[in-house]
């Protein structure tokens, strides 16, 4: 009896937290394979390296859960970042620079939101259009050139608060915000409901358009912050920066169990997804795997992680169904 109970608890853990299991196993393997992996510095490095993409991924998580996505986040990041850097070089005000990044990014996302809600453009197309427009605007503004000599601006991404590097602090705060929104607010519930079944959500009295707009605005704030951290980390205003980051962010969210069919996903899962990719990239460089081979391995592990996650979850639903049918006898 006791063992079967243990088995049940174990299988519960396995299915509910399957992606964390993948992460834990990967962590153990990495620690064994290379002695440099398990050091405070290296782990802090990984966290810093994934911070920008992870912050974007939190925005994506909220959007994907509500049945949308944002292909423009990499480009909007670059636009918000170069505007912010350039405002800083003109005014030397960190606060103003920070606000400019967020405002620019939120404006882009409001346009995304309007295209989706008012004009019923599919989010894929709306944000694809924004991706091109924002990149173009960033290049136009800088004339294609990087902005250097950005002085104290680097404090955003290279400084530390209580000994913790600022990118990690930002990432942690945004993790908490995302978690709180999804778990403890009406907005979060509505986001899940809309992604799960938009018509039913509407028929439950939820203002679908308003919620979608809010999701984009929150995404905008996150992308703006990511833009500041990115530019500060590379010590320059780079209009060509963060190309393809929207896909890295989508990858992290999806590995973390966010479902593209909508209605499913968590902030902590996305964090786990981002760390899986982060660990993998790190260990392959540490162990000096051939750079072409790295791409193959990265793709394969991503596929395997998601396959395992889906497999573990299907098993769970089947068992649950079984329980209920057994109960109703």
């Amino acid at each position, binding site marked *: 009896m006791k063992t079967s109970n243990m088995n049940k608890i174990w299988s519960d853990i396995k299915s509910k937290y399957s992606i964390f299991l993948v992460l834990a196993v990967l962590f153990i393997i990495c620690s064994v394979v*290379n002695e440099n992996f398990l050091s405070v510095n*290296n782990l802090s490095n990984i966290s810093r*390296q994934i911070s920008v993409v992870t912050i974007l991924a939190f925005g994506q998580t909220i959007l994907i859960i509500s049945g949308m996505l944002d292909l423009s986040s990499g480009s909007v990041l670059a636009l918000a970042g170069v505007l912010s850097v350039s405002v800083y070089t003109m005014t030397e005000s960190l606060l103003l620079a920070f606000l400019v990044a967020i405002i620019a990014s939120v404006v882009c996302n409001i346009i995304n939101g309007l295209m989706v809600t008012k004009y019923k453009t599919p989010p894929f197309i709306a944000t694809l259009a924004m991706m091109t427009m924002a990149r173009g605007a960033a*290049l*136009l503004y800088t004339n294609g050139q*990087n902005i250097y000599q950005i002085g104290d601006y680097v404090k955003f991404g290279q400084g530390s608060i209580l000994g913790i590097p600022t990118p990690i602090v930002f990432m942690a705060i945004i993790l908490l915000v995302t978690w709180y929104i999804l778990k403890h607010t009406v907005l979060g519930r509505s986001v899940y409901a809309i992604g799960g079944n938009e018509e039913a959500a509407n028929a439950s009295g939820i203002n679908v358009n308003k919620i979608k707009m809010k999701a984009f605005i929150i995404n905008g704030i996150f992308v703006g912050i990511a833009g500041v951290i*990115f530019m500060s*980390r*590379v010590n320059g205003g780079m209009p060509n920066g963060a190309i393809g980051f929207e896909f890295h962010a989508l990858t992290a969210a999806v590995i973390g169990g966010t479902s593209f069919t909508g209605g499913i996903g968590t902030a902590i899962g996305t964090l786990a997804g981002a760390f899986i990719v982060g660990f993998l990239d790190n260990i392959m460089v540490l162990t000096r795997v051939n750079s072409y081979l790295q791409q193959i391995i990265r793709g394969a592990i991503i596929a395997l992680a998601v396959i395992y996650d889906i497999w573990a979850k299907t098993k769970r639903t089947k068992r649950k169904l079984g329980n209920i049918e057994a109960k109703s006898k």
Partner: protein
Amino acid sequence: MKKWLAVFLVATLIMSMLAGCTSPATNEEGTGEPEESGDKVYRVAYVARAQADSFAAWLANAVKEEADKYDNIVVDIFDGQASDSTQNALIENAITSKYDAIIIQPNNGEAQRPYAEKAVAAGIITITTNARIDGIQGASSVDADPYEQAKVNAVVALEQIPQNANVVVLKGPPGNFHADARRDSWQKEFFDKRPDVKIVGEEIANWNKDEAMNYMETWVQANSKIDAIIAMNDNMAAGALEVIKDDSRFSEILAYGVDGTAEAVLLIEEGVMTSTSLQSAYALASALLDTSNKLLTGVETQIDIDIDCPLINKDNVTEYIEMHKRAGAIR
């Protein structure tokens, strides 16, 4: 709702007008010219690799500035958007529009070769640049030799890098002509001659600063001793240096790049970076315009030249800082 749409449309319109200023403006200036001077004004199409590529954008800007010095030449800039098909279409359009000369900065030399050949066949003066497409009958070229650019660094590195050193290598995108030629040069001119030097890390950072940072962060975890950073461009060298700028273990590290960007010359001035070689967009642009002029006016029929790639180090860096200051890239 309508208000928003209006704001959005107006914003787009303004943006497109601003964007439009860059090329048609030169066109208008040009059309005014012939009536005043009565001389023939030559129309030149400059097909850039990508306006989104910072060196390519710099070069395009330099070409435009340089063209202003010539009364008889008008240059229209076209953006190849880092895409072979876009660039090929632009070349075809330029042929159809009967430009007097076409300057091609290829995205991928081999992919643009047949189109460059088409331009030659149409009797249009064709110049390839950065990088040149070799062996097109009747075409001219202006380039900086990537092998040479890396070599000037490798030669000094032979002396500077200590015995049994550990080095890390940052590469550009695989398949890129400049990326491959620079790496090849380092191999032949340095690594083959210095078997004692050990490569403790070699990764593709795609010319990008942020990717180079990520690799360097990991390398310094695994290696307490890294004596030199060998990067195929300045962006990646700067990225690697960004990681270790406050790390006392690496205060003596050597770092080599290529391009001579504003950031790199500042780092050399600070004494953080060791050397780079200049791939000067200004030098390329002036050579391009000079070559175009000679070919268009019939002084010569075929020219192949390489611009110099001078080494920039602590001793001569002031000169290059001045150059960037004049261009407005450094304050």
